């Protein structure tokens, strides 16, 4: 089906089902229970899951297949956001032209940066991409924001003001929308103690993510994808086999740049502003973490990694010492204080610490990422030995 083989079709339908049912799956605890704070089924977070899923899927086409580690992909995401907000300012809050432009601009931007950075490989390539992204950040933060020429609105970030022309707005909504369907409108379904939220913005982003996943899947199974994997293994052999690795790399770079642009455009579509911090190196590092954590070179890994990190960032960071004290309040006071003291550094503001530890554990013990771990557990349970359920999975870390 859809030009995919049986296993791939099943994987794809699985992703579609999980994504569409996310408002249920991510909301397992009743609203009033103590565990409700672990629910992730609210619009803002769910949007982030799928948007960063797109970002990581695209990054994986470059890093997972070719092994070229870009440390500057956030630049393309940022550029996508700026492009989208400009469309809101000039045309209207309809997200279609905004997203189209984010993809195009990010594609062109990555074409230029990729052309230059791909003159080198290995660590030099990574450093070049990092340098370019930091330059873009600096430009967005200050250079391109001055009274005579204000493209990015500097520190404040680009946003839509009432004085903006919005030539095509007419009587359209005052919020981002898809042909009138407002992105922030949410329907709530209450079943017993549970409240499930269905948000237009989430479903629009989810549709994009499903499309992005499908295209990535096709790329993985195409001759083009095979050449990208060949580059990762032995670029010399590829060249002596009559293939020019340069345009293959550039195409992979641009495709992944366009994915980042789409993610940036969607970020703006759900919340119409764009700031320079989206281009910062920490943001570029985050997508690297997502991909490696989930499983570089696997199909599902990046999506899983993105959801995992965003969940930590938003849920663990909210657990403060008051919350901890209520959890352990049934214990004697001294033990309660002791437990809180031990756990506290790892939650709340310390969530980075937990994430860092988990990242280390995964890289050391599960070089294939969460997907690899899941596969091992699955094999243990079923007693089967399906080491290669995903034939593209390559559990070796990239060099």
């Amino acid at each position, binding site marked *: 089906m859809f030009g995919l083989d049986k296993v791939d079709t099943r994987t794809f339908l699985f992703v579609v089902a999980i994504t569409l049912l996310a408002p249920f799956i991510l909301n397992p605890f009743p609203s009033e229970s103590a565990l409700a704070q672990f629910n992730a089924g609210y619009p803002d977070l769910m949007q982030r899951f799928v948007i960063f899923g797109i970002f990581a899927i695209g990054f994986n086409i470059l890093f997972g297949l070719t092994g070229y580690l870009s440390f500057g992909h956030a630049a393309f995401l940022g550029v996508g956001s700026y492009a989208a907000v400009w469309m809101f300012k000039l045309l209207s809050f309809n997200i279609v032209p905004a997203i189209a432009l984010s993809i195009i601009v990010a594609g062109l931007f990555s074409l230029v940066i990729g052309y230059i950075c791909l003159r080198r490989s290995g660590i030099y390539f990574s450093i070049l991409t990092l340098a370019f992204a930091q330059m873009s950040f600096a430009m967005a933060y200050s250079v391109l924001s001055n009274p005579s020429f204000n493209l990015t609105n500097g520190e404040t970030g680009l946003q839509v003001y009432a004085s903006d022309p919005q030539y095509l707005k007419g009587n359209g909504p005052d919020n981002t929308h898809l042909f009138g369907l407002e992105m922030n409108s949410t329907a709530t379904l209450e079943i017993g103690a549970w409240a499930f939220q269905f948000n237009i913005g989430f479903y629009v982003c989810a549709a994009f993510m499903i499309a992005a996943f499908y295209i990535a899947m096709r*790329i993985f199974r*195409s001759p083009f994808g095979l050449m990208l*994997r060949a580059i990762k293994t032995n670029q010399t052999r590829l*060249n002596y*086999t009559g293939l020019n690795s340069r345009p293959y790399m550039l195409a992979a770079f641009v495709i992944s740049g366009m994915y980042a642009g789409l993610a940036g455009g969607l970020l703006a579509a759900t919340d119409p502003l764009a700031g320079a911090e989206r281009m910062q190196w920490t943001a570029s590092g985050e997508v690297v973490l997502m991909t490696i954590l989930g499983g570089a070179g696997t199909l599902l890994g990046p999506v899983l990694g993105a959801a995992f990190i965003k969940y930590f960032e938003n849920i663990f960071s909210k657990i403060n010492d008051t919350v901890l004290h209520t959890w352990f309040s049934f214990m004697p006071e001294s033990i309660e204080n002791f437990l809180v003291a031990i756990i506290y550094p790892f939650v709340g503001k310390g969530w980075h610490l937990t994430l860092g530890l988990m990242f280390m554990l995964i890289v050391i013990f599960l070089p294939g990422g969460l997907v690899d771990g899941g596969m091992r557990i699955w094999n243990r349970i079923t007693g089967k030995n399906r080491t290669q359920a995903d034939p593209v999975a390559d559990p070796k870390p990239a060099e």
Partner: protein
Amino acid sequence: MGILEIKDINKRFGGLQALGDVNLSVEEGTVHAIIGPNGAGKSTLLNVLVGKLEPDTGSVTFEGRSILGLKPHQINQLGISRVFQTPEIFSTLSVFENVMIACFAKRDGAFQLNPLASISNEKDIHEKVEQMLLDVNMADKRNDIAASMSRGDKRRLEMAMCLAQDPKLLLLDEPTAGMARADTNNTIELLKEIEEKRGITMVIIEHDMHVVFSLANKITVLAQGTPIVEDVPSKIKGNPKVQEAYLGGAHE
């Protein structure tokens, strides 16, 4: 004029004259062997032919056109394939995928942007790969990961990749090194068959004289970067210069 003409090639590595005034003409449809002691410059000569090294002076023409300065992939697309001394294969990919890449390169050229095409729809490529694997006796290993194979098998795989491209000129750098006797004999049979059926011109570097004398129509002896003798196999054996080169080489 031969299909490959090498004229006055010189190549220095610092103080070492790796190639000195090399002149060589390879006739179309023949097997031309290059022999010589270790360090004679045999692999260096092949490196010049495939665009890995630029010579300091001299010219190389293939089918009448100069190939100096071309990129490796361009030279390959002209019809020159090389089997390396240490196997160069896609070690994390399967045997099947390795050969498939060579088939795509032959059919689609140096670059093809087809990210949405499906490999499983490429019936003709699949058939060609199957056929190639049968030819080199590797059909049973089609799903093995290349890195997991013996050195001899890796070499056979590399040969299959080169042959899958139907090259006009095949450069073989010690194709039987690391192979068991039986595999060596199979390789000789395979190369003989290729030469007879498809008429592919070959340049073969080999230390195993059994291989050389079974295949070569002509032999060039290289010593310290310079060809010292070029003759038909029957006249090479007794040539005193050749024996001296090998003994001299062994002393160094």
